[in-house]
């Protein structure tokens, strides 16, 4: 009993020292509440682990060629899922999957095609995985053909190219705007800029994609006179628009976190307002700005809907910004719905997903730990 009371005391002590006097009774309801709350709080960590495990799990068969026989078994059972799944997305008027099957004439065709791919992949499940692994680092992304090739190099190049373009567009714009908001803007102007940025952050990416597809693509083509209407340039700008709020918000936070004394000291030494902003505030907040750009990169890297709608979706290796590209995320988004569950193509898509996950995880970790360390040191003047 005394032990339990002690426990209650310790947990409340942190809130205020007053509680020490009143020795509280142990209550089950309180004890339970704490345990439940604590357990639930671990959910976020659990989810991260689960995401990693389950996304990676589906991509594992590529690496293990020994598992090939088991693989074929999964095929037969997964195939049924695929048939019904494909039907609902393709067929209008499919309220209940089981009923429409066989009724709609089209579905028989569909079933046939999946059956074909089934026999092909089941027969050569073993080889398929091996070729997948071999072709992974080539530039041909041809997942649906007689001889499927899963080269992700072109996708990687496309993704990096588009990330580069969008950050080149978004980062200077957002950082300068944040500097304006933090250093020059009057209170009233701030109250216009900040909510506008928040609204932009609330824009669904499919709306930005729609805007890019319908308006921006035509406009940019008129200005720059290039051939392909949808290309990495259009996609990059559109994704940049999506990344602006993130970069802006974090940069602005970092700028306002610079202590007032820096500002005052600089002014007292005779520096003007803009000199202070550029040579004192901005350098002091560099780690924060670095984090902002990193998180912007993370946002663009995994963006799916804009990539699907505005980049043209052709896997090309070239570095010309006015060529169509296909990004990693867009590939998953476009092909996952049409793929046979459990076959090599499906596994490769999950492998791409794992890559995306690891990449954003690392970026976030760098942003978090690097910034925490550096920013604290600088502001405390060590």
């Amino acid at each position, binding site marked *: 009993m005394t032990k339990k009371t002690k426990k209650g005391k310790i947990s*409340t002590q*942190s*809130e*205020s020292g007053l*509680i020490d006097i*009143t020795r*509280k009774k142990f209550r089950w309801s*309180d004890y339970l*509440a704490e345990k439940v*709350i*604590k357990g639930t*709080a671990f*959910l*976020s*960590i659990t*989810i*991260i682990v689960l*995401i990693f495990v*389950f*996304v990676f799990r*589906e991509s594992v068969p590529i690496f293990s060629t020994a598992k090939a026989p088991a693989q074929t078994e999964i095929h037969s059972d997964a195939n049924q899922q695929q048939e*019904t799944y494909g039907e*609902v997305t393709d067929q*209008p008027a*499919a*309220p209940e*999957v089981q009923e429409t099957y066989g009724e709609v004439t089209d579905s028989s065709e569909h079933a046939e095609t999946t059956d074909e791919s089934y026999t092909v992949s089941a027969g050569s499940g073993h080889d398929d995985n091996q070729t997948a692994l071999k072709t992974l680092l080539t530039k041909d992304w041809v997942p649906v053909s007689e001889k499927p090739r899963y080269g992700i190099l072109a996708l990687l190049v496309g993704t990096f190219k588009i990330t580069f373009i969008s950050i080149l567009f978004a980062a*200077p714009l*957002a950082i300068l*705007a944040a500097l304006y908001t933090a250093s*020059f803007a009057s209170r009233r102007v701030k109250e*216009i*800029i900040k909510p*506008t940025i*928040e*609204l*932009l952050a*609330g*824009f*669904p990416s*499919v*709306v930005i994609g*729609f805007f890019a597809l*319908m308006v921006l693509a035509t406009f940019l083509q008129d200005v720059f006179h290039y051939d392909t209407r949808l290309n990495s340039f259009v996609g990059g700008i559109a994704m940049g*628009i999506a990344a*602006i709020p993130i970069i802006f918000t974090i940069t602005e936070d970092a700028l306002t976190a610079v202590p007032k004394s820096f500002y005052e000291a600089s002014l007292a030494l005779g520096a*003007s307002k*803009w000199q202070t902003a*550029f040579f004192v505030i901005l350098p002091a907040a560099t780690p924060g700005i670095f984090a902002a750009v990193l998180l912007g990169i*993370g946002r663009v890297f*995994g963006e*799916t*809907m804009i990539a699907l*709608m505005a980049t043209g979706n052709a896997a090309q290796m070239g570095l010309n910004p006015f060529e169509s590209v296909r990004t990693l*995320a867009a590939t998953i*988004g476009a092909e996952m719905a049409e793929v046979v569950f459990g076959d090599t193509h499906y596994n490769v898509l*999950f492998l791409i997903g794992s890559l995306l996950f690891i990449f*954003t995880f690392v970026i*976030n*970790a760098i942003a978090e730990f690097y910034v925490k360390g550096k920013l604290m040191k600088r502001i405390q003047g060590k």
Partner: protein
Amino acid sequence: MIRSFKNNIKGILIEGLTLSSALLIIAIVVVMVTVIVIGGKDQISWEFLTSFPEDGMTKGGIFPAIYGTALLVILMSVAAVPFGTITAIYLTEYAKENSVIAKTIRFAVRTLAVIPSIIYGLFGLGFFIKFVGTQMDNTFMGGELKWGQPNILWASLTMALLTLPVVIVSVEEALKTVPNDLRAASLALGATKWQTIWKVVLPGSISGIMTGTILAVSRGAGEVAPILFTGVAYYVATLPASLSDQFMVLGYHIYVMTTQSANVDQTMPIQFGTTLVLLMLTFILNISAIVLRYRIRKKKSN
């Protein structure tokens, strides 16, 4: 004298540069909104909002998409808001600020916030549909396919994971605005910690929970990537009646109409109309969240 004049010019130029960046961003927002409003305003009518698509989606309304979106965000909130709130309570009320557990949870929450939405889609497919769903089918349905395929339940749960960090961050901010004096007073009167949280802290932060919910709903209504293969359908003739049905969603409707439809030009007005509806929906939600949060911050600074 000359030097300070030069400096002045430089200062004006530099300030002008930063100002024009800010203006350009605002201009982008204004242009996007204007274009979509102008393109879609003639399409919006009561009929458009309340009728089904007709003639292979070239005519008619978007009612099933609106209904599906609403159902999705309601189910999503039911899952995300309680868990998000409880996590926030743990972080502010129970965990010590610098404990390893609290730090790890915060890191996990921020990581959840930056994971690309398509990864949630993959996770929903791999975990909910292929793992949980298939298990459920094997145990309850005798192997018959019911839960092991995309449906609105799995889509909502996937979306709930995506919006969890939004809820946690908002609620945490609100819980911090409840003055410590109130907690101390409640404890001093003999209330237990849980009673204090339930009767004092939570009622004081109800607006924060609301803000979190609204922001989560706004995010959930607009996201498409997580539900691409966890439950959304191109077209369903009936409204989803059970949790194992597929459904239509505004965002996916826009995507499909613009990229997959055979006659993009013919359906242009519907595309703009749908986009306008979705944009207005997220706008209204976001603006109310901004107003609510503004009030909370004001209360905090007082």
